[in-house]
């Protein structure tokens, strides 16, 4: 293939260009994969910008999973029943697993995990702003599961079809677990909203605090999201921020009714014409200020991550040294 002509849609993508093929041939092959809605794999040539965009997105996603463990870990030791404690532990553990899958996917793009980790620890990489809010009460475990994991599902289900193979496949595994996470959040809130007055109040208060930030998890409004279009052209993103946000609101309104809880937005109203719920404006100033580091827990979250990393240094070093000594001994035995 030497021209940049798009492969006809119905025919399969031709064989990958041989090693040493011209830049045009590589670009054409990549374009054809995207046009065909096929998968780009680590061995395939890809534009530098595609690689960079994905590395940023996948590693930010991984960082979010890891930082996101902290607000929920805050309640593991105080969970009000042993069953809830066990479920919450399993959930937070899953999030660590998600971080691992995603770091592995990011590594296939050429940046090693320890470099990505340094970017996080040095404050050069971002993670989802929602995790800079405190988890103050047990009901927050419900609100986080229901709203935050719920928003994550809306975001992530389309990512299962992302053009980059390792990312899409990681998302398939992750989405399965996220639906369990949302369900446990729902169950927590359901118990609370059907419990004592104090429990109901706790549940409503948590939803009041997490609803707005959860809606902001989809990113800024489309008009203020200049990079979205490129990601959509590359089949990384399938729906715009506002489309996903709308989908989420439409999903949550009836669920909130079933829970007997109120979403803290007086403007929510069914719009017959659009076939969607209308909703009120979000506080984007707050969103941007949290991203800029002014969130209630930004410093605390980073401090915890750095402390875990620093205090674990001697452990990782010992493990590496032990592995080296073992390999050496093995080599000696083989050479003897």
């Amino acid at each position, binding site marked *: 293939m030497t021209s940049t002509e798009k492969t006809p849609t119905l025919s399969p993508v031709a064989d990958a260009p041989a090693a040493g093929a011209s830049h045009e041939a590589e670009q054409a092959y990549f374009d054809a994969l995207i046009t065909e809605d096929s998968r780009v794999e680590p061995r395939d040539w890809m534009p530098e910008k595609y690689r960079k965009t994905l590395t940023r997105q996948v590693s930010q996603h991984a960082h979010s999973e*890891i930082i996101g*463990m*902290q607000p929920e*870990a805050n309640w*593991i*030791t*105080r*969970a*009000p*029943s*042993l*069953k*809830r*404690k*066990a*479920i919450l*532990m*399993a959930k*937070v*553990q899953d999030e*660590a*697993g998600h*971080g*691992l899958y995603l*770091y592995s996917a990011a590594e296939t793009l050429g940046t090693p995990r320890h470099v990505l980790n340094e970017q996080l620890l040095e404050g050069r990489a971002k993670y989802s702003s929602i995790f800079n809010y405190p988890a103050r009460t*047990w009901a927050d475990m419900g609100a986080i599961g229901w709203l935050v994991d719920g928003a994550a599902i809306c975001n992530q289900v389309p990512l299962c079809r992302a053009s980059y193979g390792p990312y899409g496949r990681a998302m398939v595994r992750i989405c399965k677990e996220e639906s*369990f996470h949302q*369900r*446990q959040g729902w*169950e*927590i809130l359901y*118990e*609370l909203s059907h*419990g*004592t007055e*104090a*429990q109901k109040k706790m549940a409503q208060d948590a939803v009041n605090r997490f609803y707005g930030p959860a809606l902001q998890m989809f990113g800024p409004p489309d008009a203020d999201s200049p990079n979205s279009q490129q990601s959509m052209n590359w089949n990384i993103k399938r729906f715009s921020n506002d489309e996903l946000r709308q989908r989420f609101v439409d999903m949550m309104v009836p669920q909130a009714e079933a829970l007997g809880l109120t979403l803290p937005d007086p403007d929510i109203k069914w719009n017959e014409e659009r076939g969607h719920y209308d909703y009120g404006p979000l506080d984007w100033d707050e969103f941007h200020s949290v991203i800029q580091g002014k969130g209630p827990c930004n410093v605390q979250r980073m401090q*915890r991550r750095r*402390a*875990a990393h620093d*205090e*674990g*240094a*001697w*452990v*990782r*070093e*010992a*493990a*590496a*040294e*032990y592995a080296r*000594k073992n390999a050496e001994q093995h080599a000696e035995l083989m050479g003897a």
Partner: protein
Amino acid sequence: MSYASFESATRHSEGESIIAEDIATSGVQASEAVARYALALGDDALMLGQRLAHWISRAPELEEDIALGNIALDLIGHARFFLTYAGTAWGKTEDDLAYFRDEEEFRSVRLAEQENGDFGQTIARQLIFSYYQYELYTELMKSEDPTLAAIAAKALKEVEYHQDHATAWALRLGIGTEEANRRLQEGLYYMWPYIDELFYDFEPVAELPGVAVVPSTLRARFEERLHATIAEAQLQVPDVPQARGGDRSGVMSEHRGHILTELQVLARAHPGATW
């Protein structure tokens, strides 16, 4: 007795193995003595599970967040079995027993209550405790009480993993670097004084021949295997005196109250509530 499996959103066990809800709904009722025995084993698992859970999001690497979280989760699972079973004697639930007993009513060994310290100290505690539990459950599987035997069979599979995890880390830390060797050795010194209590023949063991495992009978095998691992990891068996008060009463423990303060705070703020 059979424990049929059923579908549940929150069920972690797979297949035919026992889960806490099965015990609660099976209609079995532990005798007073069996309940007091089960309570002690449940309290051990609960205290250590609670301690280990604190590592989640703080471990030296992500893989360890997952591994220590797994172990903590297993232990909370074991606590749920034993406390549920104990509760059948008194018409109480696992949560009544975990959340609404006072400090002096717990029967945990002090080893399980010791602080996490650094990773070396935690691994020292894991090493001792998992080797002990391995011997305990291996014997308890043969109990004439089918519920205790079923719990032990399930727990043993998981404790085998806990033991492998602790052993692998003992070797890495002991042989890896001088600093790691020193830290793990220190951890062993801190934990060693509480070993006697693991093998204390507490009441009601004597009342339950063939049902309860006599702790003192486990010691020889435990020591043989643990000392071998310590030597392989290029560490020393600490030569330190045993701490007095090794009778599971908690009278000689400062840690138990702090653990319970955190564990129970929310449940006790809302007595009678369901979650």
